[in-house]
């Protein structure tokens, strides 16, 4: 039986000096290649959960495992390297370094991930292929990221998350800055490309209407109990 893409077991975490916000997740699992929509209201601990999965913070207790690796066994630096190698991240908005060219934005995670860079092969060619697949203009790679529309920036963020085919894609409300028509097209492209890369997709949102596209929809309160006020 293959290792789960993400597995949390009896995880407890409390932010130091953040109003005492703490989170307890008894169990949560995602299979490889699975797409999961995690629904939760603002302040319910979504960002904290993503920080734990991405290895930005380490659990005080319990086990966080991503792509078969127990993050608790890694130091802070190793978790940063692990994140670069195995996880593609898409934010709600302001995903890109606005002063950098699109190509540099897409290739940035490969700077910190030699194995992922090797997987990507011809990284510049792969960036161009992803941009084309995501419906971005042919000359977009040379453009300054800050000059693109919000929708184009989100698609560049998808290309950046997918380059080098990381096993896990984490998306934090990536459609909230897009209008309804663009949301659909964006999600279709995201699912196509994540499927083509064989990546698991964990998306966090408060929009229940997105659920139809996902293999599973989970409410955050069903897997997490939180206390205090989240950041």
């Amino acid at each position, binding site marked *: 039986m293959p290792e789960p893409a993400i597995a949390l077991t009896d995880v407890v975490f409390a932010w130091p000096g953040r109003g005492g916000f703490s989170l307890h997740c008894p169990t949560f699992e995602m299979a490889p290649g699975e797409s999961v929509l995690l629904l939760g209201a603002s302040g319910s601990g979504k960002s904290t959960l993503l920080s734990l999965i991405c290895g930005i913070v380490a659990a005080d207790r319990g086990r966080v495992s991503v792509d078969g690796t127990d993050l608790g066994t890694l130091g802070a630096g190793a978790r940063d390297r692990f994140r670069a190698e195995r996880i593609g991240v898409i934010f709600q908005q302001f995903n890109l370094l606005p002063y950098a060219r699109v190509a540099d934005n897409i290739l940035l995670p490969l700077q*910190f991930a030699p194995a992922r860079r090797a997987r990507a092969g011809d990284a510049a060619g792969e960036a161009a292929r992803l941009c084309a697949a995501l419906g971005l203009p042919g000359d977009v790679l040379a453009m300054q990221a800050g000059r693109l529309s919000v929708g184009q920036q989100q698609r560049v963020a998808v290309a950046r998350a997918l380059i080098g085919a990381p096993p896990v894609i984490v998306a934090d409300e990536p459609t909230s800055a897009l209008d309804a028509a663009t949301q659909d097209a964006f999600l279709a492209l995201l699912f196509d490309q994540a499927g083509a890369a064989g990546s698991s997709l964990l998306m966090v949102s408060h929009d229940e209407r997105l659920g139809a596209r996902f293999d599973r929809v989970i409410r955050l309160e069903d897997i997490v109990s939180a206390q205090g006020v989240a950041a």
Partner: protein
Amino acid sequence: MILRLAIGSLLARALTVGMTVLAIALSVALFLGVEKVRTGARASFADTISGTDLIVGARSGSVQLLLYSVFRIGNATNNVSWESYQDIAARPEVDWIVPISLGDSHRQFRVMGTTPAFFEHYKYRGGRSLEIREGHGLGDLYDAVIGADVAAALGYAVGDGIVVSHGLASFTDHDDQPFRIAGIIAKTGTPVDRTVIVSLEAIEAIHVDWQSGAQGQGRTTPVEVIRAMDLTPKAITAALVGTESRLQIFGLQRWINEYAEEPLLAILPGVALSELWQIVGVAETALMGVSLMVVVTALLGMTAMIFSSLNERRREMAIWRAMGARPGTILGLLVLEAMLMAAAGAVAGMALLYLGLVVAQPWIDAAFGIWLPIEAPRPREILVLATVIAAAGLASLLPALRAYRLSLADGMMVRI
């Protein structure tokens, strides 16, 4: 790629970064400029006299004697009698001796009485001799040879007549005995350029009717009579001495300093010059200190700028962190940006300095007689620039450490 992104980040904040770079550039230009003037002044002073073993004058301070006899700065408090001068000249250690007589002026320039031997023995800039660019040396009693700056400033040419004024700031002219410009000396970069040279006898001649610094009333001795007179001076201001052997310098110096007939002072120009540097050194150090503080202020301004930009860059740092950058990478990025700003400031400062030199070099030379060479940066200047860049990196550690802590706390979850 990281370097390209750091440059891109700086360019994206062109206005604030530009102001910071300009502040660093100006401070670097000031610091290097002060250093340039300091070394230029030292070199110009050191180059002024060469090959003279001793300078002899009335007993006063060694720096004072050096200043009035060589640099025409200040005045002698007393003279050296002609008898004493002849006693010194007769010493077996003396190879050559050149008397000089100062005290009169022409317009803003000093007039110096001397002998043709001055042109033979006065050496500057490592042994270079004076070269008469136009005309010839002192021949007739009323011949004057002028320095290049005198000719340039007053528009004189060979054959022009000039009148010497009595003293340094008087309204009384020796207009009964005008001089004729016999020669113009090529530019030397020394006080000679700003000197009117006449013969020792000429100084005596124009003072024939003068007693105790005042003109005798109604007495005007005809020039023909003066020419026939014995014009051997009664006193001179100072004398430049060359010895037969350098080993004899100290013996001769001691003999002159212990000369019983008259209180005299013999100095070694190099030693007096280093005494002068000791005096000037305090001002130099203060000036260097002030310009160093300007550099420090510019770097503090840069640090403040980085600090103030941290909050608006938290999102950017979160993106770096999400892509796998360690907090240490964020720290390194900010230090790199600071060093790039300092490097740009250093290069711009150097460019400003050279631009300033091109513009101000002739003026500084004409006004102060200090020649500031335009040459490739010296290792010391390169070291200063490297130190500024390193100091910028060090100063940026404060905001960079704050960014490090922020990126640890924020992770990749900053909401804007």
